[in-house]
């Protein structure tokens, strides 16, 4: 065990800032991170044990106990539940004879829950030993457990054919489907590697930034910061080395467009990173990918190698003297908050994914305290097209404030869930038509994931774009027969509670209190005051450091705003005060222990 860990430590040059990679490799090799290895890592890296431990214990996919030879991580997102995840979960528990969070006594199988894994268009889905299993049914769960008991490898367990496109390629071999339903100027098939780089090297970095500024492009991650301006800051920032980060953490439940880009258009993405590197003067790019997409690693590494072989990456790219740029892939280990750019940087430095205080902004002081530009996957793909076709061309697409196209990840109650590239300016009604959902059957649409807003039918004429409904691109369609508060809001609140980094007091404590208020209302013990409390308490989160904390009350607040009647019909009309105390429940445990019959 010790020598295995030593080999891993040496592979990463005993570099403290590569702790994530070290831990990921240890986890993969041993199935968990034993304490003795934690101590070994600490000693070798000159850290204390608790210092290594604080990184390990932060991430969902690191475990300090054995997770079984086979570890099943079943998604528990709202859409997974909508698609029958609970039946699959029950089947796994029955077949394995264990609960979630447990490992079978023989150490063969561990069963765990996990938040949205970016497969909302093919739920219920699970990750088993880093392989993705989609469209699960209770029957499939039974088959999988049988295969496990027969000792099959995960790759031999698939009874489905491989997915579409690159998912079939030798380096991926996955049953995941791309579900690309609408291709636009960014996702179009005609792109070949190097196209934009050939043009790029004839431009000055300033000219590149000028084109991007001209395009009026705004960051596609959701915050919508103007890309050209960010690059200009990056170019002007002082530092001996600069970095480009591509944020492929894609943790917002309901979003999966980056998964599709990473599968089908990685050349486009890498070229975008090269362009960004050229523009700001960075020599290194880091692609930070969520752990859930680990199955794409070999595929992505091979494409990076091809780019190096063709000198689209490396030294003096395409003969341009001094134009040096390379890319490395950094995997996460299961933490939604790492989608926040400064948390992502912390994570890439081997630390807990806790957002940093701003100022300073990453663009002045980012990765290893050097100027760092962090862009979304989709943004970097789009800039390639800007370089190829010009800023004016890009600007001619979409609306005044929202130029270009947007990739939408659409899931939930519709016929054709998948990825759609649309020009900005579509209304929700247009989209419902496009994806095969009858607007009269639709009760609500969750726009922008849990941190976004849930809107009702009276707002389906609203337009997607920064002028009206801004979104990072996730739309979850919720039909009439769903129970919004139980099926959606409660699930999302649990999600935020689990995913808080725990640093800000506001975000660490308040979401639990709000969830308990919601439960009280769902349990028919609510009164008017509880609704008022929710509104007041929700405001506290606005004082949190990062976007996660600031939006953690959104599932409740936005459903309360747009579906207030759902709350009001559940509260007690004839009572002003109810603290929810139930004597018969409160004495149950003591009566059981003493063998008494409760006398109330």
């Amino acid at each position, binding site marked *: 065990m010790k020598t295995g860990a030593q080999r891993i430590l040496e592979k990463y040059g005993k570099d403290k800032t590569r702790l994530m990679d070290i831990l990921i490799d240890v986890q993969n090799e041993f199935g968990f991170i034993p304490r003795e290895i934690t101590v070994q890592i600490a000693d070798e890296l000159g850290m204390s044990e608790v210092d290594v431990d604080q990184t390990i214990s932060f991430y969902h996919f690191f475990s300090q106990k054995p997770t079984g030879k086979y570890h099943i991580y079943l998604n528990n997102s709202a859409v997974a539940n909508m698609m029958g995840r609970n039946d699959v979960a029950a089947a796994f528990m029955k077949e394995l004879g264990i609960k979630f969070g447990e490992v079978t006594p023989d150490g063969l199988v561990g069963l765990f829950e996990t938040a949205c894994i970016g497969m909302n268009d093919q739920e219920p889905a699970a990750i088993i030993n880093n392989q993705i299993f989609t469209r699960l049914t209770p029957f499939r769960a039974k088959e999988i457990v049988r295969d496990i008991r027969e000792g099959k490898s995960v790759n031999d367990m698939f009874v489905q054919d491989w997915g579409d496109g690159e998912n079939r390629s030798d380096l991926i071999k996955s049953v995941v489907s791309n579900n690309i339903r609408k291709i636009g100027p960014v996702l179009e098939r005609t792109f070949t590697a190097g196209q934009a780089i050939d043009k790029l090297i004839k431009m000055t970095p300033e000219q590149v930034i000028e084109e991007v500024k001209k395009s009026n492009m705004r960051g596609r991650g959701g915050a919508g910061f103007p890309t050209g301006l960010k690059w200009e800051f990056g170019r002007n920032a002082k530092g001996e080395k600069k970095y480009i980060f591509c944020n492929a953490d894609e943790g917002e439940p309901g979003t999966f467009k980056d998964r599709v880009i990473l599968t089908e258009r990685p050349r486009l993405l890498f070229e975008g990173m090269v362009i960004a590197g050229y523009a700001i003067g960075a020599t290194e790019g880091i692609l930070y990918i969520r752990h859930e997409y680990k199955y794409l690693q070999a595929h992505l590494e091979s494409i990076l190698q091809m780019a190096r072989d063709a000198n689209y990456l490396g030294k003096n790219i395409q003969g341009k003297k001094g134009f040096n740029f390379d890319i490395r892939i950094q995997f996460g280990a299961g933490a939604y908050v790492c989608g926040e750019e400064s948390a992502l940087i912390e994570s890439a430095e081997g630390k807990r994914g806790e957002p940093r205080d701003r100022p300073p902004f990453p663009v002045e002081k980012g990765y290893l305290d050097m100027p760092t530009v962090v862009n979304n996957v989709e943004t970097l793909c789009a800039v390639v097209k800007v370089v190829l076709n010009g800023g004016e061309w890009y600007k001619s697409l979409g609306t005044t404030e929202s130029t270009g196209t947007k990739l939408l990840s659409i899931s939930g109650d519709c016929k054709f869930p998948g990825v759609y590239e649309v020009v900005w300016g579509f209304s929700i009604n247009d989209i419902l038509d496009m994806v095969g959902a009858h607007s009269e059957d639709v009760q609500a649409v969750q726009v922008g994931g849990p941190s976004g807003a849930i809107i009702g039918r009276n707002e389906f004429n609203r337009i997607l774009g920064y002028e009206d409904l801004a979104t990072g691109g996730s739309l979850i369609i919720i039909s009439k027969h769903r129970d919004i508060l139980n099926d959606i809001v409660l699930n999302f609140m649990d999600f935020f509670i689990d995913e808080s980094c725990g640093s800000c007091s506001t975000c660490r404590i308040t979401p639990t209190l709000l969830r308990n208020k919601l439960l009280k209302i769902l349990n028919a013990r609510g009164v008017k005051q509880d609704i008022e409390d929710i509104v007041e308490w929700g405001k506290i989160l606005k004082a949190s450091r990062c976007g996660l904390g600031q939006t953690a009350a959104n599932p409740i607040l936005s459903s309360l705003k747009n579906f207030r009647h759902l709350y009001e019909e559940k509260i007690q009309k004839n009572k002003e005060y109810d*603290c929810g105390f139930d004597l018969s429940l409160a004495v149950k445990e*003591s009566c059981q*222990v003493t063998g008494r019959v409760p006398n109330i």
Partner: protein
Amino acid sequence: MSKPIVATTSLAGCFGCHMSVLDIDEKILELIELVEFNKSPIDDIKKFTKKCDIGLIEGGCCNSENVHVLKEFREHCRILVAVGECAIMGGLPAMRNGIPIEECFNEAYLNGPTVVGNDAGIIPNDPELPMILDRVYPCHEIVKIDYFLPGCPPRADLIWEALVALVTGDEMKLPYEVVKFD
């Protein structure tokens, strides 16, 4: 005009808050002039004989009897005041919160260092005894409480100030030194 009527009780408390009431020293004579006591250990009236204006509650709720008494106070008193840390947040008795009841019973009756002579290993379970709650509850998590006077016990001056304010309807004066949690 008849005098305002005050009732008091100690639930899961140590009577320290009641001692603090007495600690207003000679002002107790003024107090007697000012109010009439009903159900209270101070005058030993065991049952409510009339509607009261003010109920002072010491202690939180650790068993079904506490809950019963607290609810009775809520019914009979116009204003309820939680007096002291135990009433407000469970206090020391609430240090058992979070520990399973069985462990608490075992510690108290079977394995604790002060257990003597319980060779039969009996955990009291007579039907006459109040039933123990799963945890100790602050009073406002059982019924509506109107005012809170922190302290362990609340300073006598604080109790005095609060009572006078409630009786006279004047604003409560709360000098910095009198509001303390210990």
